[in-house]
């Protein structure tokens, strides 16, 4: 029972990271109708930026954190202008292929610059964690969960209560109508990419002390996050979060009770099971493409 509680805590912590990246997927998908296959690389790049600032240059953690997030905002701009924007009038297939190309480019550029050795980034807090009864609560996992909860609340407030959020929603639902109402569609898409890149980067920075910082971390996280969005119901914000948490828990228990080397395979099995038996996901939104 103690082990179960411990695994549950760890699973929710990992799941929260998947949920953050999944949220980035969903936001871009809703704004542009395109799945950004480079979403995971945003996390990877942000983690490496942290390593450069906090470890290599030895700058304070908070400063490195802010600089890394600023770097991600910049990357969001470059990504939009270089990859999505020129192709915005094409069908979804070329755009998907371009984002896959961008993902390969980012991952391997980092590899070429930094080499294949995984890097270590220490956690935000000095204290490694607290013992609460039978369960050991790792401080970094606590931070991940707290930030995820805060971001979900912020996200809700931003999209439902602010004018900018409403404009973003209008753009994602009907671009033509939004532009007729005087909303600058290209500015809204730019904001979406910046926000998603920062969100992905935040997930990467948070998870970096738990995993190693490696070239593969981006694609691994992205695959899990994508599976999470399908499990939750594609295009649904609540679904992405629930799906991410569920996947983190399933994976942690799978690794503990079934097999460690195949840990990364469980997400795929759950994904295929959902595709066959319940393709609309738990929350059942927007299955196939629009007719």
């Amino acid at each position, binding site marked *: 029972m103690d082990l179960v509680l411990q695994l549950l805590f760890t699973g929710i912590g990992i799941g929260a990271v998947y949920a953050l990246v999944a949220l980035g997927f969903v936001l871009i998908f809703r704004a542009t109708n*395109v*799945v950004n*296959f480079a979403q995971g690389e945003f996390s990877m790049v942000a983690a490496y930026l942290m390593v450069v600032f906090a470890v290599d240059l030895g700058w304070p953690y908070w400063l490195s954190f802010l600089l890394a997030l600023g770097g991600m905002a910049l990357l969001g701009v470059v990504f939009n202008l*270089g*990859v999505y924007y*020129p*192709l915005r009038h*094409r069908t*979804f*297939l*070329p755009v*998907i*292929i*371009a984002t*896959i*190309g*961008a*993902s*390969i*480019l*980012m*991952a*391997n*550029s*980092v*590899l*070429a610059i930094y*080499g*294949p050795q995984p890097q270590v980034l220490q956690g935000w807090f000095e204290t490694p964690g607290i013992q609460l009864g039978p369960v050991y609560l790792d401080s970094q996992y606590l931070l991940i969960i707290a930030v995820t909860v805060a971001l979900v609340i912020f996200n809700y407030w931003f999209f439902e209560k602010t004018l900018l959020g409403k404009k973003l929603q209008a753009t994602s639902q009907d671009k033509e109508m939004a532009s007729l109402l005087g909303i600058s569609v290209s500015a809204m898409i730019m904001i979406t990419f910046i926000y998603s890149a920062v969100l992905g980067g935040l997930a990467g920075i948070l998870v970096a002390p738990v995993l190693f910082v490696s*070239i593969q971390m981006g*694609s691994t996280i992205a*695959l899990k996050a*994508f*599976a999470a969005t*399908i499990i939750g119901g594609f295009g649904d914000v609540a679904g992405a979060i629930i799906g991410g948490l569920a996947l983190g828990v399933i994976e942690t228990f799978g690794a503990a009770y079934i097999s460690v*080397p*195949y840990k*990364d*395979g469980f*997400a*795929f099995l759950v*994904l*295929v099971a959902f*595709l*066959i038996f319940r*393709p609309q996901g738990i929350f059942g939104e927007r*299955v*196939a*493409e629009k*007719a």
Partner: protein
Amino acid sequence: MSAPSDNMPLAAPAVRVRPLLVRHLPYFIAAAIVVALAARMQFDGYILNILMQATTFSIAVFGLSVVLGLCGQINLAQAAFFGFGAYAVGIGTTDLHLSFWLCLFAGCVIALLAGAFLGASTLRLGGHYLAMVTISFQQIVTLVMINAIGLTHGPDGVSNIGRPQLLQTSQGYLAFCVAALALVGYLVWHLPDTKIGRAMRAVRDNELAAGVNGIDVFRTKVYAFALCAGLGGLAGGLFAGGFAYVSPDQFSFAESIVFLTMSLLGGVASPIGSAIGTGLLILIPEWLRFLKSVPGLYLAIYGLFVILIIRFMPDGIWGFVSDAFTRWRAHTSAPAPAGALQLKPATVGGDTVLEVTGLSKYFGGLKAVDGVDIAVKRGGVHALIGPNGSGKTTTLNVLSGLYKATSGRIVLDGTDITAMPPHQRTAAGLGRTFQNIRLFRSMTALENVEIGAERPGNTMVGKGGDAALTERAMEALTFVGLGARANQLISSFSYGHQRLIEIARALAANPTLLLLDEPAAGLNSTEKLDLHELLKRIAAQGLTILIIDHDMTLVSEAAQHITVLNFGRRIADGESMAVLRHPDVVSAYLGSE
């Protein structure tokens, strides 16, 4: 389905077409010469390795040209399928001591089945699902290759892989691979002009239109995906025999991306493009070996290549060349058809061709169509009219199977089609056009109409083969007045002409009932008159038409019978003049006094 006396196939036109194999003889002679060269020339080991790699990789990339180029579906796990073939030959010839041929065959079959399963679980959904699922699948396969040490020898890989008795020398084996490449290349090159190949192109261009023209969209996609995987397996098996050693890193996600880049660079739509792309991307890294000294650098360049190609050269290198060829071919005229188009709609049921009872379609709480009855009598033109938002187009979409009916029953010429998917309704004799034209944009007018003529159960083409198909399509195009421009691409036609091509596509299928969705929308007055003439000529041949339109002049002159919808319900039905004077109809259109 129809009485044979009514529907005898026309005698095949007396056009003498030389057998396909004779026409393509130059290709086979050229291929034989290349194979002989590969067998005779004395290459040193380095060149031999490059040639072996280029040959086997090309076959795998051919698979991508089928799934991505022809069918428009993505596959990011081609290296995994390649790996299935390679490990089948690797493990089979070493640990299991089986014959090379058996292992090669088994590898193809395993890859094919894996592809079919993966496709069948995902291809009903949108394209981004397929992309992610294939990436995940690729990762799983790599995990198994590394961790299932008992089976795959893990990271060490399998060495001392055997070759067949006859082909022990590298030179001989290379010649064999080149022969396989030539054969597969021929099949893939010829595929777009076959029935299944046309279906794949139609699915790529417009899934909805493909469905209502009698193509089983899902099955076509699964075939394309499985074929791609099978070719990957074949290529992998040949690769294993060539290099005698396989290890997991040769079949990683990075290799799948390399395959994708090769395919995009050369031109995704054609095997020639695939071969060019493969050749270039194997040779260029050899010339730029220094790039490989920095890990990641050359893959980063591949990633950049992918973005640049997609943006600036979406059809690849070969796309430039073949575009020019297509434009040149547009000026050649197709042979005029031997006879005039004959419409012989099947007659099985009684006087009523289409019997719709209690048809409803709800979207959540919205009752778009609510308990509508329509009975369309055989012969003549029946119109379905109503103000905007009255549920006309929804009714048509339910009739053709694009929407599932919430309740009610649809009987077409004695067959209950209520539960059928679109392509089966088309096979049962339903034809339709769309308000917003849905043609296959990358094809010529003739090819578009050929897909219509290919409807399963079209007795007017029968088993006549390609010649009869072309003949039928030419007849239909000539019937609508566009026969002389048959070889032009869809984009070169005006809006009104595109509409006529859509009608020709439906007519070529020899339907029992033709549904026309606002055919006059967007036409100028001359075009409207021509359309009216055309409808008369169609009706004169006994084909029943159900038409939706806003143009009251057209409707009142063309239709003998009118059904009026308002707010999803039927408010009037009967002989056209009587219906148009009906007080409810007048008030629905003009408001009550």
